[in-house]
């Protein structure tokens, strides 16, 4: 979340719709994705982020949430006030296979002798005008994807069935979903009726030098090491669909970089943070290790 440098001794908590990034997340644009996203947000078109795991989709959303400004007059508790917020709140929902519509929209809970309605994260985001980021949306149950349809077209409406309400999204609200076309089975593909409601931004791993820069920044290792890691990742990614389901992600490279920065030998660091997480297939492991040992001396 925040790249806090000072030691944090206590946890902090936010209401989901109030969570804002206080510091600029580190993100290196690879192409025009920033401009595209900005344009989509301006014109209230939801965004679909496609790309392999660990290539920076989530970080990108955080980065955009931080940079999109929405100085607006809002009504809160009956009073009108000018919010001086400098960036958009970000509501992130990691989707899983048991995620239901109620989980997103909200439900009644019992409290003493009464029932209390609790908004779900999506409802909160709609009300707060936040970016709602549904990560790995295909993992969620089918009814949830239908739920977001009215939110994604011109209506920008969220029906809250249990309360017989319709919610009009506040300005600033933007639905962002991500999905990784690579690893899901055919069953888990996104339906056409859903995908055609979004503009899509495709992500791939950044080019070698950019990736090295990112790895260096995030892990604190030397640039030479980072460049070698990036080079190695490039080689490993050549094995995608040839023994490997997915290539080594930038995230894994960063882990490796941190390990190395902590003093673990490069070959060992790559083994524990790249080779072993990537695959269980002995032969593939061995070939990747050969690539590693070709690039790194002991």
């Amino acid at each position, binding site marked *: 979340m925040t790249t806090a440098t000072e030691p944090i001794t206590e946890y902090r908590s936010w209401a989901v719709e109030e969570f804002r990034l206080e510091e600029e997340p580190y993100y290196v644009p690879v192409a025009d994705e920033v401009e595209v996203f900005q344009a989509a947000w301006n014109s209230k078109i939801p965004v679909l982020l496609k790309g392999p795991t660990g290539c920076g989709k989530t970080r990108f959303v955080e980065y955009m949430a931080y940079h999109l400004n929405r100085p607006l007059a809002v009504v809160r508790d009956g009073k009108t006030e000018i919010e001086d917020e400098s960036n958009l709140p970000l509501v992130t929902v990691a989707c899983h296979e048991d995620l*239901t519509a109620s989980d997103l929209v909200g439900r009644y809970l019992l409290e003493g002798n009464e029932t209390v309605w609790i908004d779900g994260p999506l409802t909160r985001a709609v009300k707060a005008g936040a970016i709602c980021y549904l990560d790995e949306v295909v993992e969620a149950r089918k009814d949830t994807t239908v739920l977001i349809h009215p939110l994604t077209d011109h209506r920008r409406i969220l029906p809250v069935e249990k309360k017989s309400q319709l919610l009009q999204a506040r300005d600033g609200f933007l639905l962002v979903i991500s999905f990784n076309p690579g690893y899901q089975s055919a069953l888990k593909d996104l339906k056409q009726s859903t995908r055609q409601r979004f503009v899509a931004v495709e992500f791939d791993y950044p080019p070698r030098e950019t990736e090295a820069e990112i790895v260096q920044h995030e892990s604190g290792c030397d640039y030479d090491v980072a460049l070698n890691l990036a*080079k190695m990742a490039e080689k490993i990614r*050549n094995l995608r669909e040839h023994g490997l389901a997915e290539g080594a992600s930038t995230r894994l490279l960063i882990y490796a970089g941190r390990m190395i920065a902590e003093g673990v030998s490069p070959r060992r660091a790559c083994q524990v943070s790249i080779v072993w997480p990537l695959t269980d297939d002995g*032969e593939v492991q061995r070939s*990747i290790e*050969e*690539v590693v*040992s*070709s690039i790194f001396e002991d």
Partner: protein
Amino acid sequence: MTAQPVEEAREGLRQFPPALGQEFEGALEAVQPILEPDELGQWLSDGLDIARHSLRSWEAASEYFRASGLILEQITYDRMREWCAVGIDLMETSPALSGALFRASPAVLPHLSVPQANDWAAQGKSLYKGTWKSGSLSAQYFDVSPQILPHLPLSQMRLLVDLIDSLASHSYELASACLGMAPGVLSQLDRSDRAPFLEFGGIVAHTAWVDARVYFERGPSALRQVSEEQRPRYLSLAGQVAMQVGRLGHPYFIEAAQALSEVDKDIHQGLLELSEQLAGHSGDAAMEFLKSSPRVANRLGIDDIARWQEFGLQILQQSRDGGEAFFRLESARGEEVMEALSSRVDLDRVSELIRMYCKALTGVDVGVKASEELTAKGVGWVDESSPTTEGTTIYLPENVERYPTKDENFAVYKVFATHQAGRLEFGSFEYQSDLEPVHFPDGQNGAHTATQNGHGNGVAPAVVDGEETEIHTDMERFFDQFDDRRLAHDLFTIVEDTRIDTIVKREYAGVRRAFSRLQQAAIDRRRPVEDMPARQAMVENLLRASLDEIGRIRWPNELAEEMRTPLRILNRIRHEGATVQDSAAATALLYEWLSQIPNVELDSEDWSDFEQEMSGEPDSGEDSDMMPGSGSSGLEESFMPFMPGSEERPYDSPDPVDFRGDFKPELVQLLMKLKGETGSGDAPPIPLSKEQLQELLEKSVEISINELMDMDLAESSGMFLDNLLKEVNQIQGERQEGQQAMGDDSTGAEDGEELPVEAASFYYDEWDFRAADYKPRWCRVQEQRGESGTTNYYTETLHEHTQLVQETRKQFEMLRPELFRKMKRLTDGEDYDLDAVIEWYTEKIAGGASETKLFYRRNKVERDVAVAFLLDVSASTDEEIQKHHDQRQDDQFDDDPRKYLSWWAQRRAEAARHPGKRIIDLEKEAVVLLIEALETIGDKYGVYGFSGYGRDNVEFFVYKDMDEPFGDRIKERIDKIAPVRSTRMGPAIRHCIWKLQNTDAKVKILMLLSDGRPQDHGYGRDRTEKEYAIHDTKMALTEARREGMVPFALTVDRAGHDYLKQMCQDMAYEVVADIESLPRRLPALYRRLTG
């Protein structure tokens, strides 16, 4: 004086046939001059005594007379009497033998002393058993003695006689044949081998008498395969084994000798010692050990073989079968131990690893194969042991055994592969005449002729005809510019390899150490420079420099300056960012420099190591420094003082550097061009006439062709050309096939054509329960698509079972609502559970409610099932369920409707009486019904059949593959399910496991449907043994379970309980007692299994 006894004798002989008289006269003539009168008398009376001895003894007398003269030429009369007494004694046994003895005597005498006569005769006599056959065998003994005794001392004759005697007890014909062969056989053997040979022969005669003839025929030549000194030892070992193994003894003898012939003779002694140790435990093991020795020795040195044998011996002591399998190399352990002991790395063990490694480095789909495969194609590459690439595949030597450990040897492979991958990754084959070099000034690209001809970019059109220039590759046109193609080629190779090695070492720091080690080794092997003529020495020095060994350059001090310029040029190629264009430019510069240097003997006292600093800073040189001619005008002049003779010597290419391997860029470009893989991408392959190519090749690949073989150039290039075209066509064919395969579903469905049914081979281990170990790669499973018939069968079956189909479909549909399971009483969930809320509220009002678990959640139980059905389509499924069924008589009604009617009526009546179904029909019906049911619930499924004969031909039919969509195709194939041959279940199950492994599902089921126990040729000790097959099948089912699959065996064999119990143990199985209920039973079972 002597006349009277002679006359008396004549008189006496008259009562015998005249032939005897004639013989006598002849003998008399020979004997008379030698013998004293009293001796003559004696001789005469002996002869008469013999003749008169018994009815046919005159024949013996006749032999006696005939031999007498010849005997007396060799020994005195006294000795002769002594000798002949033996023969006369033999008269008592048989006059015929006696005759044979006399007949043989003259020829035998040179080899025997007179006192030995007794012994000799006694041996012959021992063969005589009083019968006619034994008599003639015994006589044969005397007849062949003269030919045998030169080879065999009488003392050893006993061995032969015993052998023959032993054979005679079985067959006189065989004994006689062997005795007849004996002289020839013995003469082929070394003196010291003869006795052991006969000793072993004796054992063979004893244990496997029918093999004796083969032994006599082939034994000597078999024995010659064994190292000379070791032959007696081998024979005695074979004897020891034969005593244990009986009939197998002789085949072992032949086979093991054959095996030894494939092994270095120096280690025969060691191998035999090891084998002898085993023979004490198991004769089979001892011989199997020898039979396996070529394969083992191929991998291990004799010391390691001893360790391997020791390991096997331990197993042997625990389990005979296990040990024997170990030495037969039929156990995984045997292979493993061998692999562990050997430091050699075999390509086939690491090729997949290297392939992925190279794929990772280059990003293209490279193959990795043995170099032999490329040379076998005959397309220009000739070295079987060096690494190379033709642009799509990296070829490596079959094995590496250079260093004492596996890791080091693997590192060698890695260097080989990295260098070849480097050529692909860093564009060694991407030379294009119109691209500019990076580190060399423009215009030097093809400097030499190009600049002179005024062609800007150095592209000198080699052939004037525009059409033909098109077919030339850029690389080739580049080489065409140089008068001395060989020199240009050598220089380009050095430069380009330098570039690749430099980049590789820069990019892959981790392999530097292994690289340097090989570089060092390479340079240590190089021939001394001092012996080479000037130009060649300079090339050699450049090559040394390219191996990073400036210090190993040897060059006359006085000419240091002349060496410095080329080194500077070479060094520039090491700059970052250098491309193959730079290599070409550098080659042109070097060529220009070197071509001015006369290739003559250098005479200098001052050869010395080239100093590092003398080569100058790699970067210091200005471009102009590298320009030939600009710094040192008249190179030739500077060499003049050091050239004693001006005789130009032929230029030889430098020795190749092993780890860099063959480099044939012009061929690679040509191949790529022919395959349509030029830089332009998907340009269609250029159709070339054979003539065009021929012309092209004669020029461009002369080097390769010359090396190819010493035949007429035109002929060899023609052959080369054929091979090349074949290679190209093959690749194009593959590509087209691939496209067809891809378009199979869309286009194929329309025309209904299927791709040819081609069997793909898979290899599986087999479990040997006796050895308690797997036999590695024991079975070959041939996967092929089932044949197609029509869809009628399928439709008819459905029709026939309309009722049942509907039932099962309904039952299966009922599986679906179960997909969602309501979980109640949760603290949180989808919604309130009304019952729970009411209950809670009531309790609350009653004043005691505390329950807060009021929610329910519908949990989606995802049905994620994959099932593989394995049908037994062995011949036994052909059996009818009711035996007395008549074959349906189709088509006997012609077109006559009346006949048809009567046929139809008859058939119906018959059908009513005899349903006449075979087991396979029921299997098919069951499959049809199940498919219908499965389609309703959407489980993934595959339908396979298996049969086959023998371990290398397990047929595996695919009726529907796991990922194949259901359709008419499948229906057509089901129609053609038919009984074939045997039942080798194990490998079929293993192949099914493999199929399921490649299918993504949470629940995987392997359903085996058979009609009886597993059996196949060689599936067990003999056809009747059941244990082996059952154990292997059981192990295969266990493997399935280990893989997380659910194996289920179903049999229609009523006797199935006994072996299924053993095969499945705690796994599920069912015996369908009422066979005809199978179509109904199978879907029900499946439902139960997955519900």
